[in-house]
Protein backbone atom coordinates (compact mmCIF):
# COMPACT_ATOMS: atom_id res chain seq x y z
CA UNK A 1 0.00 0.00 0.00
CA UNK A 2 2.48 2.67 -1.13
CA UNK A 3 1.93 6.09 -2.56
CA UNK A 4 -1.26 6.41 -4.50
CA UNK A 5 -0.54 7.16 -8.13
CA UNK A 6 -4.06 8.36 -8.60
CA UNK A 7 -3.87 11.19 -6.15
CA UNK A 8 -0.38 12.66 -5.88
CA UNK A 9 -1.73 15.62 -3.93
CA UNK A 10 -2.41 13.59 -0.83
CA UNK A 11 0.60 12.38 1.09
CA UNK A 12 0.73 8.66 1.63
CA UNK A 13 -0.07 7.49 5.12
CA UNK A 14 2.83 6.65 7.38
CA UNK A 15 3.45 2.96 7.90
CA UNK A 16 1.46 1.50 10.74
CA UNK A 17 0.09 -1.73 12.07
CA UNK A 18 -2.95 -1.64 9.82
CA UNK A 19 -0.95 -1.29 6.63
CA UNK A 20 1.46 -3.97 7.74
CA UNK A 21 -1.35 -6.35 8.52
CA UNK A 22 -3.02 -5.69 5.19
CA UNK A 23 0.21 -6.40 3.34
CA UNK A 24 0.68 -9.63 5.29
CA UNK A 25 -2.82 -10.77 4.49
CA UNK A 26 -2.39 -10.10 0.79
CA UNK A 27 0.92 -11.92 0.80
CA UNK A 28 -0.47 -14.91 2.63
CA UNK A 29 -3.42 -15.04 0.30
CA UNK A 30 -1.18 -15.00 -2.74
CA UNK A 31 1.07 -17.65 -1.23
CA UNK A 32 -1.88 -19.89 -0.51
CA UNK A 33 -2.73 -19.96 -4.18
CA UNK A 34 0.45 -21.88 -4.89
CA UNK A 35 -0.22 -25.08 -2.94
CA UNK A 36 -3.90 -24.89 -3.77
CA UNK A 37 -3.08 -24.56 -7.41
CA UNK A 38 -0.61 -27.43 -7.28
CA UNK A 39 -2.84 -29.74 -5.26
CA UNK A 40 -4.93 -31.12 -8.09
CA UNK A 41 -1.82 -32.36 -9.86
CA UNK A 42 -0.85 -34.41 -6.84
CA UNK A 43 -4.17 -36.09 -6.41
CA UNK A 44 -5.41 -38.64 -8.86
CA UNK A 45 -8.50 -40.29 -7.46
CA UNK A 46 -11.77 -38.76 -8.42
CA UNK A 47 -13.26 -38.84 -4.96
CA UNK A 48 -10.54 -36.67 -3.44
CA UNK A 49 -10.60 -34.35 -6.42
CA UNK A 50 -14.29 -33.87 -5.91
CA UNK A 51 -13.75 -33.23 -2.23
CA UNK A 52 -11.19 -30.54 -2.92
CA UNK A 53 -13.32 -28.84 -5.55
CA UNK A 54 -16.33 -28.82 -3.25
CA UNK A 55 -14.27 -27.50 -0.36
CA UNK A 56 -12.80 -24.65 -2.36
CA UNK A 57 -16.16 -23.78 -3.88
CA UNK A 58 -17.79 -23.59 -0.49
CA UNK A 59 -14.89 -21.61 0.87
CA UNK A 60 -15.72 -19.06 -1.79
CA UNK A 61 -19.47 -19.25 -1.15
CA UNK A 62 -18.95 -18.88 2.55
CA UNK A 63 -16.64 -15.94 2.05
CA UNK A 64 -19.36 -14.33 -0.02
CA UNK A 65 -21.78 -14.94 2.85
CA UNK A 66 -19.21 -13.59 5.25
CA UNK A 67 -19.34 -10.20 3.56
CA UNK A 68 -22.95 -9.76 4.60
CA UNK A 69 -23.11 -12.00 7.62
CA UNK A 70 -19.71 -11.54 9.16
CA UNK A 71 -18.51 -8.07 8.33
CA UNK A 72 -21.85 -6.39 7.98
CA UNK A 73 -23.38 -8.42 10.78
CA UNK A 74 -26.60 -9.36 9.03
CA UNK A 75 -26.88 -13.08 9.62
CA UNK A 76 -28.65 -14.51 6.62
CA UNK A 77 -29.83 -18.08 7.03
CA UNK A 78 -31.45 -18.19 3.63
CA UNK A 79 -28.50 -17.54 1.37
CA UNK A 80 -29.21 -20.65 -0.69
CA UNK A 81 -31.76 -18.47 -2.46
CA UNK A 82 -28.97 -16.61 -4.21
CA UNK A 83 -27.04 -19.77 -4.97
CA UNK A 84 -30.16 -21.26 -6.47
CA UNK A 85 -31.05 -18.19 -8.46
CA UNK A 86 -27.53 -18.03 -9.82
CA UNK A 87 -27.64 -21.71 -10.74
CA UNK A 88 -30.97 -21.43 -12.47
CA UNK A 89 -30.20 -18.21 -14.34
CA UNK A 90 -26.96 -19.54 -15.73
CA UNK A 91 -28.44 -22.93 -16.56
CA UNK A 92 -31.55 -21.55 -18.18
CA UNK A 93 -29.47 -19.17 -20.27
CA UNK A 94 -27.28 -22.08 -21.33
CA UNK A 95 -29.92 -24.69 -22.03
CA UNK A 96 -32.55 -22.40 -23.51
CA UNK A 97 -30.54 -19.63 -25.14
CA UNK A 98 -27.17 -21.16 -25.70
CA UNK A 99 -25.40 -18.53 -23.63
CA UNK A 100 -22.16 -20.06 -22.38
CA UNK A 101 -21.86 -20.26 -18.59
CA UNK A 102 -18.68 -18.20 -18.63
CA UNK A 103 -20.91 -15.33 -19.63
CA UNK A 104 -23.99 -16.63 -17.88
CA UNK A 105 -22.35 -16.64 -14.49
CA UNK A 106 -22.14 -12.87 -14.60
CA UNK A 107 -25.79 -12.63 -15.49
CA UNK A 108 -26.41 -15.01 -12.62
CA UNK A 109 -24.47 -12.75 -10.29
CA UNK A 110 -26.39 -9.70 -11.48
CA UNK A 111 -29.80 -11.27 -10.96
CA UNK A 112 -28.87 -12.78 -7.61
CA UNK A 113 -27.45 -9.44 -6.50
CA UNK A 114 -30.60 -7.65 -7.55
CA UNK A 115 -32.75 -10.10 -5.60
CA UNK A 116 -30.51 -9.59 -2.59
CA UNK A 117 -31.17 -5.86 -2.80
CA UNK A 118 -34.88 -6.51 -3.02
CA UNK A 119 -34.77 -8.75 0.02
CA UNK A 120 -32.45 -6.52 1.99
CA UNK A 121 -34.36 -3.34 1.60
CA UNK A 122 -37.34 -4.28 3.77
CA UNK A 123 -35.52 -6.81 5.91
CA UNK A 124 -32.68 -4.65 7.17
CA UNK A 125 -34.97 -2.77 9.48
CA UNK A 126 -35.61 -6.00 11.35
CA UNK A 127 -33.37 -6.68 14.28
CA UNK A 128 -31.36 -9.75 15.17
CA UNK A 129 -33.49 -12.85 15.42
CA UNK A 130 -36.36 -11.36 13.45
CA UNK A 131 -33.99 -10.73 10.57
CA UNK A 132 -32.52 -14.24 10.69
CA UNK A 133 -35.92 -15.88 10.61
CA UNK A 134 -37.09 -13.56 7.84
CA UNK A 135 -34.15 -14.73 5.74
CA UNK A 136 -35.06 -18.36 6.38
CA UNK A 137 -38.61 -17.64 5.31
CA UNK A 138 -37.51 -15.84 2.17
CA UNK A 139 -35.27 -18.77 1.33
CA UNK A 140 -38.14 -21.20 1.83
CA UNK A 141 -40.41 -19.10 -0.34
CA UNK A 142 -37.81 -19.27 -3.07
CA UNK A 143 -37.59 -23.02 -2.70
CA UNK A 144 -41.35 -23.48 -2.87
CA UNK A 145 -41.71 -21.14 -5.83
CA UNK A 146 -39.10 -22.94 -7.89
CA UNK A 147 -40.56 -26.28 -6.86
CA UNK A 148 -43.85 -25.32 -8.44
CA UNK A 149 -42.60 -23.34 -11.42
CA UNK A 150 -43.07 -25.37 -14.57
CA UNK A 151 -40.97 -23.16 -16.81
CA UNK A 152 -37.81 -23.99 -14.91
CA UNK A 153 -38.63 -27.63 -14.57
CA UNK A 154 -40.32 -27.53 -11.18
CA UNK A 155 -39.40 -30.57 -9.14
CA UNK A 156 -37.77 -32.38 -12.02
CA UNK A 157 -35.09 -29.81 -12.40
CA UNK A 158 -32.89 -29.21 -15.40
CA UNK A 159 -30.30 -31.49 -16.91
CA UNK A 160 -27.38 -29.77 -18.53
CA UNK A 161 -26.68 -31.65 -21.73
CA UNK A 162 -23.10 -32.80 -21.98
CA UNK A 163 -21.38 -31.45 -25.02
CA UNK A 164 -17.76 -31.55 -25.96
CA UNK A 165 -15.16 -30.37 -23.50
CA UNK A 166 -15.07 -26.62 -23.64
CA UNK A 167 -13.59 -23.90 -21.53
CA UNK A 168 -16.15 -21.37 -22.59
CA UNK A 169 -18.96 -23.72 -21.77
CA UNK A 170 -17.33 -24.83 -18.58
CA UNK A 171 -17.73 -28.44 -19.47
CA UNK A 172 -14.98 -30.90 -18.85
CA UNK A 173 -15.90 -34.50 -19.07
CA UNK A 174 -12.51 -36.08 -19.29
CA UNK A 175 -10.97 -34.49 -16.27
CA UNK A 176 -12.03 -32.50 -13.26
CA UNK A 177 -8.81 -30.54 -13.29
CA UNK A 178 -10.09 -27.39 -14.98
CA UNK A 179 -12.86 -27.12 -12.43
CA UNK A 180 -10.21 -26.86 -9.74
CA UNK A 181 -8.97 -23.68 -11.26
CA UNK A 182 -12.42 -22.31 -11.90
CA UNK A 183 -13.46 -22.68 -8.27
CA UNK A 184 -10.07 -21.50 -7.10
CA UNK A 185 -10.48 -18.35 -9.17
CA UNK A 186 -13.96 -17.90 -7.74
CA UNK A 187 -12.78 -18.34 -4.16
CA UNK A 188 -9.93 -15.93 -4.82
CA UNK A 189 -12.34 -13.30 -6.15
CA UNK A 190 -14.55 -13.70 -3.09
CA UNK A 191 -11.53 -13.43 -0.82
CA UNK A 192 -10.29 -10.28 -2.53
CA UNK A 193 -13.75 -8.75 -2.29
CA UNK A 194 -13.77 -9.43 1.44
CA UNK A 195 -10.25 -8.04 1.79
CA UNK A 196 -11.19 -4.85 -0.01
CA UNK A 197 -14.36 -4.38 1.99
CA UNK A 198 -12.60 -5.05 5.28
CA UNK A 199 -10.31 -2.10 4.73
CA UNK A 200 -12.91 0.17 3.23
CA UNK A 201 -15.12 2.85 4.64
CA UNK A 202 -17.94 0.30 4.90
CA UNK A 203 -15.90 -2.10 6.96
CA UNK A 204 -15.09 0.68 9.40
CA UNK A 205 -18.68 1.85 9.50
CA UNK A 206 -20.02 -1.61 10.34
CA UNK A 207 -17.50 -2.19 13.09
CA UNK A 208 -18.15 1.24 14.58
CA UNK A 209 -21.88 0.70 14.67
CA UNK A 210 -21.39 -2.69 16.26
CA UNK A 211 -19.12 -1.28 18.95
CA UNK A 212 -21.14 1.80 19.87
CA UNK A 213 -23.98 2.99 17.75
CA UNK A 214 -24.39 6.34 19.55
CA UNK A 215 -20.76 7.28 19.06
CA UNK A 216 -20.93 6.14 15.45
CA UNK A 217 -23.91 8.34 14.74
CA UNK A 218 -22.18 11.32 16.29
CA UNK A 219 -19.45 10.76 13.71
CA UNK A 220 -21.92 10.82 10.82
CA UNK A 221 -21.67 7.09 10.14
CA UNK A 222 -24.51 5.95 7.87
CA UNK A 223 -25.10 2.28 7.57
CA UNK A 224 -28.10 1.56 5.40
CA UNK A 225 -26.56 2.25 1.97
CA UNK A 226 -23.53 0.17 2.79
CA UNK A 227 -25.73 -2.69 4.00
CA UNK A 228 -27.50 -2.68 0.68
CA UNK A 229 -24.19 -2.72 -1.15
CA UNK A 230 -22.97 -5.60 1.01
CA UNK A 231 -26.14 -7.53 0.28
CA UNK A 232 -25.72 -7.02 -3.45
CA UNK A 233 -22.08 -8.08 -3.46
CA UNK A 234 -22.69 -11.02 -1.18
CA UNK A 235 -25.74 -12.18 -3.13
CA UNK A 236 -24.05 -11.64 -6.45
CA UNK A 237 -20.96 -13.63 -5.56
CA UNK A 238 -23.09 -16.41 -4.13
CA UNK A 239 -25.05 -16.46 -7.35
CA UNK A 240 -21.87 -16.78 -9.36
CA UNK A 241 -20.85 -19.70 -7.18
CA UNK A 242 -24.21 -21.27 -7.79
CA UNK A 243 -23.73 -21.00 -11.52
CA UNK A 244 -20.36 -22.71 -11.26
CA UNK A 245 -21.83 -25.40 -9.08
CA UNK A 246 -24.55 -26.06 -11.62
CA UNK A 247 -22.02 -26.57 -14.38
CA UNK A 248 -19.94 -28.80 -12.18
CA UNK A 249 -22.76 -31.10 -11.17
CA UNK A 250 -24.54 -31.00 -14.49
CA UNK A 251 -28.00 -31.11 -13.00
CA UNK A 252 -29.99 -28.80 -10.80
CA UNK A 253 -33.32 -28.97 -9.08
CA UNK A 254 -34.73 -27.10 -6.12
CA UNK A 255 -33.42 -29.69 -3.68
CA UNK A 256 -29.89 -29.45 -4.96
CA UNK A 257 -29.45 -25.68 -4.85
CA UNK A 258 -32.31 -24.02 -3.02
CA UNK A 259 -33.12 -26.23 -0.08
CA UNK A 260 -32.58 -24.92 3.43
CA UNK A 261 -29.59 -27.08 4.23
CA UNK A 262 -27.56 -25.35 1.53
CA UNK A 263 -28.11 -22.09 3.37
CA UNK A 264 -26.57 -23.67 6.42
CA UNK A 265 -23.71 -25.15 4.43
CA UNK A 266 -22.92 -21.71 3.08
CA UNK A 267 -23.07 -19.94 6.42
CA UNK A 268 -21.58 -22.56 8.70
CA UNK A 269 -17.95 -22.49 7.51
CA UNK A 270 -17.78 -18.76 8.14
CA UNK A 271 -19.35 -19.07 11.57
CA UNK A 272 -17.23 -21.97 12.73
CA UNK A 273 -14.11 -20.62 11.12
CA UNK A 274 -14.59 -17.12 12.42
CA UNK A 275 -17.13 -14.59 11.23
CA UNK A 276 -15.88 -11.28 10.04
CA UNK A 277 -12.39 -12.59 9.40
CA UNK A 278 -10.64 -13.19 6.11
CA UNK A 279 -9.54 -16.70 6.92
CA UNK A 280 -12.55 -17.93 8.83
CA UNK A 281 -14.58 -19.14 5.87
CA UNK A 282 -11.54 -20.84 4.35
CA UNK A 283 -10.61 -22.60 7.56
CA UNK A 284 -14.19 -23.48 8.29
CA UNK A 285 -14.73 -24.93 4.85
CA UNK A 286 -11.51 -26.88 5.06
CA UNK A 287 -12.76 -28.54 8.23
CA UNK A 288 -16.50 -28.81 7.69
CA UNK A 289 -16.78 -29.96 4.10
CA UNK A 290 -14.41 -32.91 4.39
CA UNK A 291 -15.97 -33.91 7.73
CA UNK A 292 -19.47 -33.83 6.33
CA UNK A 293 -18.48 -35.59 3.10
CA UNK A 294 -16.40 -38.25 4.79
CA UNK A 295 -18.89 -39.01 7.52
CA UNK A 296 -21.62 -39.21 4.96
CA UNK A 297 -19.68 -41.53 2.68
CA UNK A 298 -18.35 -43.85 5.32
CA UNK A 299 -21.08 -43.68 7.88
CA UNK A 300 -24.12 -42.35 6.08
CA UNK A 301 -25.10 -45.61 4.53
CA UNK A 302 -25.06 -48.29 7.17
CA UNK A 303 -24.70 -46.19 10.30
CA UNK A 304 -27.66 -44.08 9.39
CA UNK A 305 -27.58 -40.86 11.26
CA UNK A 306 -24.15 -41.27 12.81
CA UNK A 307 -22.79 -38.85 10.25
CA UNK A 308 -25.32 -36.28 11.35
CA UNK A 309 -24.49 -36.90 14.96
CA UNK A 310 -20.81 -36.28 14.33
CA UNK A 311 -21.54 -33.27 12.18
CA UNK A 312 -23.99 -31.77 14.65
CA UNK A 313 -21.79 -32.59 17.59
CA UNK A 314 -18.84 -30.91 15.92
CA UNK A 315 -20.85 -27.76 15.39
CA UNK A 316 -21.91 -27.62 19.03
CA UNK A 317 -18.41 -28.27 20.31
CA UNK A 318 -16.76 -25.66 18.11
CA UNK A 319 -19.49 -23.10 18.77
CA UNK A 320 -19.06 -23.46 22.52
CA UNK A 321 -15.34 -24.05 22.75
CA UNK A 322 -14.24 -21.54 20.18
CA UNK A 323 -16.95 -18.91 19.92
CA UNK A 324 -14.61 -16.62 18.06
CA UNK A 325 -14.16 -19.32 15.47
CA UNK A 326 -11.37 -21.70 14.63
CA UNK A 327 -9.16 -18.82 13.53
CA UNK A 328 -8.81 -17.93 17.18
CA UNK A 329 -6.63 -21.02 17.47
CA UNK A 330 -4.14 -19.12 15.36
CA UNK A 331 -4.41 -15.94 17.32
CA UNK A 332 -6.46 -14.12 14.76
CA UNK A 333 -8.83 -11.79 16.51
CA UNK A 334 -12.33 -11.66 15.26
CA UNK A 335 -13.51 -8.35 13.97
CA UNK A 336 -17.17 -9.10 14.40
Amino acid at each position, binding site marked *: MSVSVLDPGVAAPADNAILRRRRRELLLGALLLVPLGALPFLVSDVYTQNLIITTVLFAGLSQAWNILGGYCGQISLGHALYMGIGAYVSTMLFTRAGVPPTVGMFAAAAVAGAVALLVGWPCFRLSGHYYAIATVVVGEIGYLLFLNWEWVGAASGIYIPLGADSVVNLQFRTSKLPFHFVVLAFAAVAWVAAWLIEGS*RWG*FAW*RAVRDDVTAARS*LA*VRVFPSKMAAAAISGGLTGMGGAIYAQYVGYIDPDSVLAGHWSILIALPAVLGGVGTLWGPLLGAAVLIPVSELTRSYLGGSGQGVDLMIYGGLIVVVALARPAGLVSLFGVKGRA
Partner: protein
Amino acid sequence: MQLRSVTKTFGGVAANVDISFDVMQGEILGLIGPNGAGKTSLFNSISGEVSPDKGTIHLEGQQINGTGPLACARAGVARTFQVVRSFDSMTVLENVMVGAFSRTARPREAMRAAQDVLAFAGLDARADAPAHQLTPPEKRRLEIARALATQPRVLLLDEMLTGLTPTEAAGGVALIRAVRDKGITVVMVEHVMEVLLPLVDRAVVLNLGRVLMQGTPAEVVRNPDVIRAYLGDKYAA
Protein backbone atom coordinates in the same frame (compact mmCIF):
# COMPACT_ATOMS: atom_id res chain seq x y z
CA MET B 1 -24.37 29.27 16.40
CA GLN B 2 -27.63 30.66 17.73
CA LEU B 3 -29.94 28.99 20.20
CA ARG B 4 -33.38 30.48 20.58
CA SER B 5 -35.92 29.42 23.19
CA VAL B 6 -34.72 25.86 23.25
CA THR B 7 -37.02 23.87 25.48
CA LYS B 8 -36.92 20.16 26.25
CA THR B 9 -38.96 18.18 28.70
CA PHE B 10 -38.37 14.53 29.61
CA GLY B 11 -41.41 12.83 31.02
CA GLY B 12 -42.57 15.72 33.14
CA VAL B 13 -39.14 16.99 34.11
CA ALA B 14 -38.21 20.21 32.33
CA ALA B 15 -34.57 19.73 31.42
CA ASN B 16 -34.21 22.89 29.37
CA VAL B 17 -36.55 25.86 29.52
CA ASP B 18 -36.45 28.72 27.04
CA ILE B 19 -32.69 28.66 26.51
CA SER B 20 -31.34 31.40 24.26
CA PHE B 21 -27.78 32.44 23.67
CA ASP B 22 -25.28 32.91 20.89
CA VAL B 23 -21.97 31.23 20.33
CA MET B 24 -19.42 33.37 18.52
CA GLN B 25 -17.26 31.82 15.87
CA GLY B 26 -13.81 30.95 17.13
CA GLU B 27 -14.52 31.41 20.82
CA ILE B 28 -14.31 29.01 23.70
CA LEU B 29 -17.63 29.09 25.51
CA GLY B 30 -18.14 27.54 28.88
CA LEU B 31 -21.47 26.02 29.82
CA ILE B 32 -21.68 25.75 33.57
CA GLY B 33 -24.17 25.20 36.31
CA PRO B 34 -24.92 22.91 39.22
CA ASN B 35 -25.82 19.27 38.71
CA GLY B 36 -29.13 18.84 37.00
CA ALA B 37 -29.04 22.28 35.41
CA GLY B 38 -29.65 20.81 32.00
CA LYS B 39 -26.20 21.07 30.46
CA THR B 40 -25.88 17.60 28.98
CA SER B 41 -29.41 17.59 27.66
CA LEU B 42 -28.68 20.88 25.94
CA PHE B 43 -25.65 19.27 24.37
CA ASN B 44 -27.83 16.42 23.21
CA SER B 45 -30.15 18.89 21.54
CA ILE B 46 -27.31 20.62 19.74
CA SER B 47 -25.69 17.40 18.59
CA GLY B 48 -29.01 16.07 17.37
CA GLU B 49 -29.41 13.10 19.64
CA VAL B 50 -32.49 14.70 21.08
CA SER B 51 -35.03 16.94 19.43
CA PRO B 52 -36.05 20.05 21.37
CA ASP B 53 -39.76 20.41 22.01
CA LYS B 54 -39.64 24.10 21.26
CA GLY B 55 -37.11 26.55 19.96
CA THR B 56 -34.50 26.54 17.23
CA ILE B 57 -30.79 26.01 16.89
CA HIS B 58 -28.94 27.49 13.94
CA LEU B 59 -25.36 26.85 12.95
CA GLU B 60 -23.92 29.32 10.44
CA GLY B 61 -27.41 30.11 9.22
CA GLN B 62 -28.45 26.47 8.86
CA GLN B 63 -31.15 25.12 11.13
CA ILE B 64 -30.01 21.96 12.84
CA ASN B 65 -32.45 21.30 15.66
CA GLY B 66 -34.41 18.09 15.30
CA THR B 67 -32.46 16.84 12.29
CA GLY B 68 -30.83 13.94 14.08
CA PRO B 69 -27.23 13.15 14.99
CA LEU B 70 -26.12 12.32 11.45
CA ALA B 71 -27.32 15.59 9.95
CA CYS B 72 -25.88 17.63 12.79
CA ALA B 73 -22.56 15.87 12.43
CA ARG B 74 -22.52 16.61 8.74
CA ALA B 75 -23.47 20.22 9.41
CA GLY B 76 -20.30 20.52 11.46
CA VAL B 77 -21.20 19.65 15.03
CA ALA B 78 -18.86 17.21 16.76
CA ARG B 79 -19.02 16.11 20.35
CA THR B 80 -17.44 14.04 23.03
CA PHE B 81 -19.37 12.07 25.59
CA GLN B 82 -19.30 12.30 29.33
CA VAL B 83 -18.61 8.59 29.59
CA VAL B 84 -16.01 7.89 26.96
CA ARG B 85 -17.43 5.86 24.09
CA SER B 86 -14.49 4.39 22.28
CA PHE B 87 -14.72 1.66 19.66
CA ASP B 88 -13.06 -1.00 21.73
CA SER B 89 -12.60 -3.59 19.03
CA MET B 90 -10.41 -1.18 17.08
CA THR B 91 -7.04 0.45 17.48
CA VAL B 92 -6.60 4.14 18.22
CA LEU B 93 -5.86 4.89 14.57
CA GLU B 94 -8.91 2.98 13.43
CA ASN B 95 -11.09 4.86 15.88
CA VAL B 96 -10.03 8.17 14.44
CA MET B 97 -10.37 6.85 10.92
CA VAL B 98 -14.06 6.30 11.55
CA GLY B 99 -14.32 10.02 12.08
CA ALA B 100 -12.14 10.78 9.07
CA PHE B 101 -14.36 8.66 6.85
CA SER B 102 -17.12 11.18 7.34
CA ARG B 103 -15.17 13.53 5.05
CA THR B 104 -13.66 11.12 2.56
CA ALA B 105 -14.48 7.70 1.21
CA ARG B 106 -10.90 6.72 0.43
CA PRO B 107 -9.15 4.62 3.05
CA ARG B 108 -5.74 6.08 2.24
CA GLU B 109 -6.93 9.64 2.71
CA ALA B 110 -8.79 8.75 5.87
CA MET B 111 -5.72 7.06 7.27
CA ARG B 112 -3.49 10.05 6.47
CA ALA B 113 -6.00 12.49 7.92
CA ALA B 114 -6.39 10.35 11.03
CA GLN B 115 -2.65 10.21 11.52
CA ASP B 116 -2.43 13.99 11.25
CA VAL B 117 -5.15 14.42 13.85
CA LEU B 118 -3.49 11.94 16.16
CA ALA B 119 -0.25 13.84 15.91
CA PHE B 120 -2.11 17.05 16.69
CA ALA B 121 -3.73 15.46 19.73
CA GLY B 122 -0.46 13.98 20.94
CA LEU B 123 -1.55 10.38 20.55
CA ASP B 124 0.51 9.32 17.55
CA ALA B 125 2.75 7.15 19.70
CA ARG B 126 -0.30 5.08 20.61
CA ALA B 127 -1.73 4.86 17.10
CA ASP B 128 -1.57 1.08 16.91
CA ALA B 129 -2.66 0.39 20.46
CA PRO B 130 -6.09 -1.19 21.01
CA ALA B 131 -8.43 1.56 22.13
CA HIS B 132 -9.51 -0.24 25.27
CA GLN B 133 -5.95 -0.30 26.55
CA LEU B 134 -5.60 3.45 26.82
CA THR B 135 -5.41 5.28 30.12
CA PRO B 136 -8.40 7.50 30.93
CA PRO B 137 -6.67 10.76 29.95
CA GLU B 138 -5.53 9.15 26.71
CA LYS B 139 -9.08 7.97 26.04
CA ARG B 140 -10.30 11.53 26.33
CA ARG B 141 -7.71 12.70 23.86
CA LEU B 142 -8.91 9.93 21.58
CA GLU B 143 -12.46 11.19 21.84
CA ILE B 144 -11.31 14.67 20.90
CA ALA B 145 -9.15 13.38 18.07
CA ARG B 146 -11.96 11.29 16.68
CA ALA B 147 -14.36 14.22 16.80
CA LEU B 148 -11.78 16.49 15.18
CA ALA B 149 -11.35 14.05 12.31
CA THR B 150 -14.85 14.96 11.16
CA GLN B 151 -13.56 18.49 10.49
CA PRO B 152 -16.24 20.15 12.59
CA ARG B 153 -17.10 23.81 12.93
CA VAL B 154 -18.14 23.40 16.55
CA LEU B 155 -16.74 20.96 19.08
CA LEU B 156 -18.87 20.14 22.10
CA LEU B 157 -16.83 18.87 25.04
CA ASP B 158 -18.75 17.16 27.81
CA GLU B 159 -16.71 17.28 31.03
CA MET B 160 -13.42 16.62 29.34
CA LEU B 161 -11.35 17.91 32.23
CA THR B 162 -13.21 16.40 35.16
CA GLY B 163 -11.26 14.05 37.36
CA LEU B 164 -7.83 14.73 35.91
CA THR B 165 -4.63 15.44 37.76
CA PRO B 166 -3.33 19.00 37.44
CA THR B 167 -0.72 17.90 34.90
CA GLU B 168 -3.25 16.04 32.81
CA ALA B 169 -5.65 18.96 33.03
CA ALA B 170 -2.97 21.36 31.85
CA GLY B 171 -2.35 19.14 28.86
CA GLY B 172 -6.06 19.07 28.14
CA VAL B 173 -6.29 22.85 28.34
CA ALA B 174 -3.38 23.20 25.92
CA LEU B 175 -5.10 20.87 23.49
CA ILE B 176 -8.36 22.77 23.68
CA ARG B 177 -6.54 26.03 23.04
CA ALA B 178 -4.84 24.44 20.04
CA VAL B 179 -8.23 23.33 18.74
CA ARG B 180 -9.55 26.85 18.97
CA ASP B 181 -6.44 28.16 17.26
CA LYS B 182 -7.29 25.96 14.32
CA GLY B 183 -10.49 27.95 13.95
CA ILE B 184 -12.88 25.51 15.59
CA THR B 185 -15.40 26.92 18.04
CA VAL B 186 -15.47 25.10 21.35
CA VAL B 187 -18.36 24.79 23.77
CA MET B 188 -17.45 23.06 27.00
CA VAL B 189 -19.46 21.75 29.88
CA GLU B 190 -17.35 21.70 32.97
CA HIS B 191 -17.49 21.46 36.73
CA VAL B 192 -13.91 22.18 37.55
CA MET B 193 -14.06 25.96 37.85
CA GLU B 194 -10.38 26.58 38.44
CA VAL B 195 -9.56 25.03 35.12
CA LEU B 196 -12.50 26.32 33.14
CA LEU B 197 -12.67 30.00 34.00
CA PRO B 198 -9.12 30.85 32.92
CA LEU B 199 -9.70 28.98 29.65
CA VAL B 200 -13.00 30.26 28.31
CA ASP B 201 -13.71 33.58 26.63
CA ARG B 202 -17.29 33.66 27.85
CA ALA B 203 -19.54 31.51 29.97
CA VAL B 204 -23.26 30.73 30.04
CA VAL B 205 -24.59 29.71 33.43
CA LEU B 206 -27.56 27.37 33.60
CA ASN B 207 -29.64 26.70 36.66
CA LEU B 208 -32.72 24.54 36.96
CA GLY B 209 -33.04 24.38 33.20
CA ARG B 210 -32.86 28.09 32.51
CA VAL B 211 -30.14 30.52 31.56
CA LEU B 212 -29.11 32.32 34.69
CA MET B 213 -26.67 34.71 33.11
CA GLN B 214 -23.96 34.93 30.52
CA GLY B 215 -20.79 36.95 30.40
CA THR B 216 -17.06 36.93 30.80
CA PRO B 217 -15.55 34.69 33.49
CA ALA B 218 -14.89 37.72 35.66
CA GLU B 219 -18.53 38.79 35.49
CA VAL B 220 -19.75 35.27 36.20
CA VAL B 221 -17.63 34.89 39.29
CA ARG B 222 -18.88 38.14 40.78
CA ASN B 223 -22.57 37.56 40.03
CA PRO B 224 -24.59 37.05 43.24
CA ASP B 225 -27.22 34.81 41.60
CA VAL B 226 -24.51 32.48 40.41
CA ILE B 227 -22.95 32.30 43.83
CA ARG B 228 -26.33 31.55 45.39
CA ALA B 229 -27.05 28.87 42.82
CA TYR B 230 -23.84 27.04 43.60
CA LEU B 231 -23.66 27.48 47.35
CA GLY B 232 -27.37 27.04 47.81
CA ASP B 233 -27.24 23.59 46.15
CA LYS B 234 -25.78 21.23 48.73
CA TYR B 235 -24.86 18.61 46.16
CA ALA B 236 -22.99 20.83 43.75
CA ALA B 237 -19.75 19.34 42.45
